[in-house]
């Protein structure tokens, strides 16, 4: 699995974190954490090499965003609610994906997180050895980002790009199938 890293990403994300005080605030167009700067075999990246979504004017989403919709609703929604909207006890991940650093997001999913005591009993499990999550984490991440900015409405994406051979090969390699 490709985990891109460019030094510039850290600075750009710091700026974003500071400006994302309101969870409801949609990211401005041209936001460097969102805007597509490059495409590689059906995957889209920001200028800093962070995975991002690509939604055409007719609503067609890139494969990863569509796949992320499916994987999110298989692995995450039993706690975090439909469409990344949050539940009675678990946060709305559509906001977390926009607010959090990509690498931190990865870290929390892989390693889990606990907030226990003083009335709180929140535990995010560690999915680091779960292929159904880790092999699709970029998918889930870009889907949630698209939800968080408001560019992708609730529900099933209407149309999608086809799965590229490169994405299929990476998936099989990750799953070991």
């Amino acid at each position: 699995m490709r985990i891109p890293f460019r030094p510039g990403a850290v600075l750009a994300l710091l700026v974003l974190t500071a400006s994302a005080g309101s969870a409801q605030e949609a990211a401005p167009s041209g936001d460097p954490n969102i805007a597509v700067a490059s495409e590689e075999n059906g995957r889209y990246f920001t200028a800093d090499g962070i995975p991002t979504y690509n939604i055409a004017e007719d609503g067609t989403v890139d494969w990863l965003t569509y796949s992320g919709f499916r994987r999110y609703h298989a692995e995450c929604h039993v706690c975090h609610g439909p469409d990344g909207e949050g539940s009675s006890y678990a946060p709305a991940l559509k906001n977390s994906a926009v607010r959090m650093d990509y690498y931190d997001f990865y870290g929390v999913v892989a390693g889990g997180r606990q907030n226990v005591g003083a009335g709180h009993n929140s535990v995010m499990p560690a999915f680091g050895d779960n292929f159904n999550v880790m092999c699709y984490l970029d998918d889930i991440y870009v889907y949630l980002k698209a939800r968080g900015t408001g560019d992708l409405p609730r529900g099933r994406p209407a149309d999608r790009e086809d799965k590229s051979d490169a994405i299929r090969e990476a998936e099989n390699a990750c799953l070991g199938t």
Partner: protein
Amino acid sequence: MRRSLLLSAAVLAVGAIPVSANEALMEMMNDPGQWVIQTGDYANTRFSELDQITRENVGDLEVAWMFSTGVLRGHEGGPLVVGDMMYLTTPFPNTVYALDLANEGRIAWRYEPQQDPNVIAVMCCDTINRGVAYANDTIFLHQADTTLVALDAMTGEVKWSVKNGDAANGETNTATVMPVKDMVIVGISGGEYGVRGHVTAYDMATGEQRWRAYSTGPDEEMLVDPQATTVLGEPIGENSSIESWEGDQWQIGGGTTWGWYSYDPELDLIYYGTGNPGTWNPSQRPGDNKWSMTIMARDPDDGMAKWFYQKTPHDEWDYDGVNENILVDQEIDGQMRKLLVNFDRNGFAYTMDRETGELLVAEKYDPAVNWATEVVMDPESDQFGRPQVVADFSTRQQGEDTNTEGICPAALGTKDQQPAAFSPQTGLFYVPTNHVCMDYEPFRVSYTAGQPFVGATLSMYPAPDSHGGMGNFIAWDARTGEIKWSLPEQFSVWSGALATAGNVVFYGTLEGHLKAVDAETGEELYRFKTPSGIIGNVTTYEHDGKQYVAVLSGVGGWAGIGLAAGLTNPNEGLGAVGGYAALSDYTALGGQLTVFALPD
């Protein structure tokens, strides 16, 4: 050594109890002033003979007192009342409170188990616990981490504890346990983690395991006799489970046992249901997947199975078969029958002969149900007892990676665990229901021990072409399989019902209302908005000659996950977004008991 000495001393000290713990418990169940088992009685009727509160005066009901549990997440189940003591259980960390009703609800003792918080993460669908059980001066708590602990009912002191499962493999607990004779009957949760379901009997005095019956696998591990155990009147035959799976898939086959249990002391049989088969992707597990989705009748002494009935062979929709089995005696075709009535997740209500397992009635209890046309009732047919699946709504026939649309009910079921009530006065069942449909797209998943094993994408929405709400509260005649009346609700009704001799039926709503309706007409007689959404079960008891009604608030559970942000209907286009009510507009987290009474 020291523990066993103390135990025998305790047994000697209370030598006045009747011959068996069972008889003592049944005597207490027959006293309507107490509420000594979560289900109200062994038959699971949730009916009380108390009649101070009537349909004439229930409108005057007032809040008598309240108690905060100190825990925020979903509160299912309800309080027990044993003598002057009330016992309350919270979601994780599963604190147990003993409240002294003779002393204005002072906390007589509390027990807070130490559990690894990592168990929270492997509990699908919130950290629910449906309450403690009582028998033989002992409180039985089955914790989230599957530790079964016996507490002295007067002091809260631990008598013994035993581990029923392994949370590292996704085995957890949400259910209460059922005391029967000198044993406690204990189930297991984890159907979304590839857990292989089982039911276990533990010695009430020592915690020693008596027997364990798996839901899937070899006959001897399921405690099935190929000749003596029957299915719809015929011998079950050899290897009935193993032959209904491919390879060794039965080992991660699901069929967990997290619902309610009932017991018929006369027939000496216990009844319960098994949950969904492992992975929600049916293409990955060809076959009938026995004995998931099954009503089981067993001998409590040795666990041997008397009869099975599989409601949803080869599940394709996550219609867990764990809902309560209500035992009533009613007349059908001029003949008194010993009935078992089950409102299944799949939307069919089954009326069976509980002695033989004969199928008498199987009808839809929500007209929206569409995944099957009927259950075949002709014993001569090779489809006898099987639902007739509609190809358009079959996620297996539509196939992997296909989004099958418009299936009713949704995976929530027409009813989930929220228990129904039965009134012998009206002969009717009062059933809290969901009125939600779904799109379902199965896809391939791999199994990792202790990780979710789901394999389907779901979107849910209110039943189309109906009243727009997500629930109904209905009155049902199980003799004929007909709805007598139906009250539309904005949200799923996720609270257990209570019927009383005052001809009143109580239930809670997800907005937080406690409602009282007329048992005959369904007319609303009273409502009060409690601090949080109600997913607990309504109970009643008497203290100092006065009738009380009690219910836990504390939104959560699957309802709190699915409905918090509201639902959208993908088939109505983008304009429908936000068109349906969001639970978060009505209520927030918070566990609290509210107790009601008539003014003096």
